[in-house]
């Protein structure tokens, strides 16, 4: 069975500082990995994905994520946080090998960026 862990319920960072939101995953085959962001009263917005190729993927709003196969991790990063980045972030995985499309989500990490 596939699973995702987001070990931090909340991450606090000062505006202008780099941020990291952690995610580790478990799948039996090769993973498709995704990050989504949720603002209040909004749906889940797609940020970025890893399918294959470069381990560092770039996405919307200056976010990037690094795929690390040996550590089974896909941490979300941004060099300089903005107050407007404050939101709930979800990591999700899909097992490439089984022909399934269902996403398995982590429990979410609330990012709080202080001015």
């Amino acid at each position, binding site marked *: 069975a596939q699973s995702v862990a987001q070990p931090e319920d909340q991450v606090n960072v000062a505006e202008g500082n780099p941020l990291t939101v952690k995610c580790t995953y478990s799948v039996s085959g090769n993973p498709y990995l995704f990050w989504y962001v949720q603002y209040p009263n909004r*749906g*889940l917005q797609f940020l970025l*994905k890893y399918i294959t190729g470069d381990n560092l993927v770039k996405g919307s709003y200056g976010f990037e994520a690094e795929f690390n196969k040996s550590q089974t991790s896909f941490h979300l990063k941004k060099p300089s946080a903005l107050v407007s980045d404050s939101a709930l972030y979800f990591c999700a995985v899909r097992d*490439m090998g089984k022909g399934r*499309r269902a*996403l398995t*989500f982590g429990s979410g990490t609330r990012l709080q960026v202080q001015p």
Partner: protein
Amino acid sequence: EPEVTQTPSHQVTQMGQEVILRCVPISNHLYFYWYRQILGQKVEFLVSFYNNEISEKSEIFDDQFSVERPDGSNFTLKIRSTKLEDSAMYFCASSAGLIDHYEQYFGPGTRLTVT
């Protein structure tokens, strides 16, 4: 930018009643999904739908649930006899097509409250 829309935004119903949640996926998308998030818990996959039939479903999606694409634009989730534990945020999503790794785009959700 095209969006997935959902109606209503909030539905209150009594236990044992039937509810229908409605979604309009992004036009020209071929795969449709329902997920739910019980308050304070993870986003969970319910069902995926392609070519007018269910392509995948989770253990949560039992005989009380059904999905339908009644016309060319709507995608519905019906719960036949609601239970208190069906109270959750229900998200509809769609993805573009046959290429495996297309990301899923989510609607803003319908909050279902069963009393």
